[in-house]
């Protein structure tokens, strides 16, 4: 018998390592790439401006992922469903933006006031379209399955994701499409420590920060936000307290969709190319971000989005764009291994 294999008071070095890894493993994994390339830059060029550039670009990219990730995290927090179609809602946001530019005749040649006004208008349209779309998806695909086992809505979510991809395919064709560089996004505005801050960076970060602040304020301060948090905690109890759970869930999808729409617009302006399959990868990346931060946790989603943005940018710049998705997904797996509850901790019913 292997009877005496578990003596009570023996110190277990393996256990110590395990504890240490589960505490700091994720942070360690996240630091590998920036530290490695930072050292490489220092020895090759003597300064960190290339890494700095990667980080700034990464933050801009990451703020787009952050906006999409919030949508995932809100929905997961409230109905514990991975909304697979969310990436496609983001893609439709981009497509709406591209279409709307044409409709109102927005071009790079217009003056700054006209451009700003036009973009604001586009932002509102994109947010409305994506928000409404997301609410509709919930109505059609998820609500009827709310009491079904977990797998059922997950499959319909994947199904809806395919449907929307095909809508995108029909709408603007199957190839990458360039759209006018309205804001001259690669134009360097100013330089800090040898790192260029471009128009695109300013737009991405400058749009994301107010939107996130608005969202957090809404959820923590407003009556509806309180209803959302209550529903996330316990839908049954919330219903008994007079909260309309269906409306609250719709509201959650609306908010998530609106942020995805805004992200779609920023993406279109920043990357200046859009295509129907952008949503799938973006969705997975944003979901990774949400999980990394701790699903159900809005601050976590933002943090995760920014970190993933930086990882992605470094991978793009140093290893090669074609490997980036593989690297991001490898990070997703590592996160799951080291810390399934994420950097800032999950906030879901199951996590308690």
């Amino acid at each position: 018998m292997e009877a005496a294999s578990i003596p009570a008071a023996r110190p277990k070095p393996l256990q110590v390592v395990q504890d240490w890894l589960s505490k700091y493993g994720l942070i360690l994994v996240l630091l590998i790439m920036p530290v490695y390339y930072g050292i490489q830059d220092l020895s090759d060029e003597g300064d960190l401006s290339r890494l700095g550039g990667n980080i700034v670009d990464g933050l801009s990219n990451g703020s787009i992922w952050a906006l999409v990730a919030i949508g995932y995290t809100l929905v997961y927090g409230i109905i514990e469903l991975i909304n697979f179609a969310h990436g496609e809602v983001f893609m439709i946001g981009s497509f709406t933006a591209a279409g709307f530019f044409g409709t109102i005749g927005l071009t790079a040649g217009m003056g700054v006031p006209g451009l700003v006004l036009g973009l604001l208008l586009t932002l509102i349209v994109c947010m409305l379209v994506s928000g409404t779309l997301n609410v509709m998806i919930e109505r059609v695909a998820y609500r009827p399955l709310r009491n079904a086992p977990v797998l059922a809505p997950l499959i319909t979510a994947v199904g809806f994701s395919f449907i929307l991809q095909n809508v995108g395919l029909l709408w603007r064709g199957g190839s990458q499409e360039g759209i006018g560089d309205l804001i001259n996004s690669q134009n360097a505005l100013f330089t800090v420590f040898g790192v260029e801050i471009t128009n695109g960076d300013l737009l991405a970060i400058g749009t994301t920060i107010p939107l996130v602040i608005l969202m957090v304020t809404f959820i923590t301060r407003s009556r509806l936000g309180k209803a959302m948090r209550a529903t996330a905690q316990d839908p049954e109890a919330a219903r008994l307290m007079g909260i309309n759970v269906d409306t609250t869930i719709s509201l959650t999808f609306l908010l998530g969709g609106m942020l995805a729409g805004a992200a779609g617009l920023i993406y279109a302006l920043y990357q200046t190319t859009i295509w129907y399959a952008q949503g799938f990868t973006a969705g997975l990346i944003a979901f990774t971000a949400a999980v990394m931060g701790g699903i159900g946790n809005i601050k976590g989603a933002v943090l995760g989005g920014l970190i993933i943005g930086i990882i992605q940018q470094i991978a793009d710049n140093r290893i090669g764009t074609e490997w980036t998705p593989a690297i991001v997904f490898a990070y997703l797996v590592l996160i799951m291994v080291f810390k399934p509850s994420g950097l800032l901790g999950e906030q879901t019913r199951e996590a308690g």
Partner: protein
Amino acid sequence: MTSAMGNRNVKIAIFLAGLFVVAILPLFFNESSGFIDDCTLALAYICMALGLNIIVGFAGLLDLGYVAFFAIGAYTMGWFASGFYADADIHLFVGEFASSIPGIHVNFLIVLVIAAALTTLAGIIIGLPTLRLRGDYIAIVTLAFGEIIHRIAINGDEVKIAEGFPLTNGRQGITPVDKIDLPFLEPFTSLNLRPWYWVALALALFVLFVNFRLRDSRLGRAWIALREDEVAAISMGIPAVKTKLLAYGTGAAFGGMSGAFLASYLNTVNADQFAFSFSIFVLAMVILGGLGSIWGGGRGRGRADVHQLPPHPRRAQRRAEQGRARIRPLRAVVRHLRLPARDHDGPQTRRPDTGAAPPDGARTGHRRGRHRARPGGAMTDSSPDLILDARDVSKVFGGLTAVGGVDFAIPRGGIVSLIGPNGAGKTTFFNMLTGLYKPTTGAILFDGAPITGGRPDKIMARGIARTFQNIRLFGTMSARENVMVGEHARMRAGLFGSVLRTPRVRREERHVSDKAAEELAYVGLAANTFDQLAINLAYGDQRRVEIARALASDPKLLLLDEPTAGMNPQESDELTALMHRLRDERGLTILLIEHDMKVVMGVSEYITVLDHGEKIAEGLPDEVRADNRVIEAYLGKGAMHE
């Protein structure tokens, strides 16, 4: 019995007739007809669907990255049976044509085995990080793996294993791939599709056979038990890690074999074949046919083909016209989508019971004289007549001390109760004894050997079995199968034994099934309910089945967590009698958590009272009943003074 046998013979006859028709089907069509082509592809997809069915359907692990196994299987064929590595010159049991061209050329059958081995390994590697995860997290991790493999396939032409040996050929694809060339047979060609069809049919039949054999085996029951209720399954002695990895490995192997076949049949291994949509395509087959149902995997196939995205629009159209598959109603599909129950049998308990004041127990002091040794704190040495000895055991959740420094001992052959108000830490204590929780401090000795923090299935194998506070039977299994799961730890049949169904395995199966019936009869279940689904049984019977399931493992110590909850007085009395019988006839030791004071006082020889995680009293029933602290804990401070 005879009619059952007759029924079985009829079924076999129908199956053989069907098989014959399917086998001669290609003879009615032109050698290179599109129909045979369709059927061959369909059969290859059936293999994958059946493989995925083991992972998703049987074991309930939602795998969205099954395409990875297709890819690895196909690349195995590409690496070992094509001219891709032209610099190499390896020929192993291949025909004249393949021998005459450069590259690595290995016989199809050998490649098939290599593919199965590699994908099994891949399945285990992909499975490992998902072991601790919940349903939809598993989905996302497997999806991520699928995408990683896809990316590696696309960019593999840049990755050189050695000079001149790239990993893949990216989007160009590895082509041509060797055609199947088996000994004693003509080499296969793309002009005559019949042999391909027969090979695919043989593969599909093999996979089907394995599926059937596994479903009704020790392993199959373990998978379904894990899917239905993981906590209950591991408490019944099923090693979760090993069992889940076996599911991943077996399911993956079939995907790999089918992938290797398809690589040869389609004559190319192209990175674009391995997109996420293919995983969903296979999953759709499994779901349309009904998860966990074997025929479903095959039946759903024809329907799902219609939605296959790339690369054969014509083929898809033709298939839509055939429309052989029957779509099951959505409800049926949904019913089968079952993932493990979510609740944890944690420290939370039911609403307060009112049965606080100890009533007059008619049989108080029953068999009291049997042992006078005071277990617990006074005991400093683990004397041989203690079956369980827990010392200074505590459990802290975050900042909350659920159990704090409890000493607890059970004499062999005794019936001991653990009582206390709700939230006192009783179930937490149970969970530490059975290994579901790891104690924060303290040591637990069972039968003189330490079991502190051991794995639940190992502790179960040592001889501690339990029931649950809120019944946790495996709903989609019959009462008998539930009990057979309880015998898991006492059985030996492995993966290969179950597939081959060796005489030993057969004997063991029969023995276990008989024993399950015995146990069910022993706890008082009517014989006609043995083969009913557990969820359809009456509440009291479900409790009985749970006890029978625990007994099936031949435990030395039986832990009963509120066995009489929700029972009427008569049923409670029956249960009390059963407990006495178990102790007297089988020499079992019983530890009971119970709120019904009538039961507690009637059956216990010794009682320990917990409150707020601490032991506040212990002793004989009469002593405990008179203890002021106990009364205070149950009724509040004022109660004593009235």
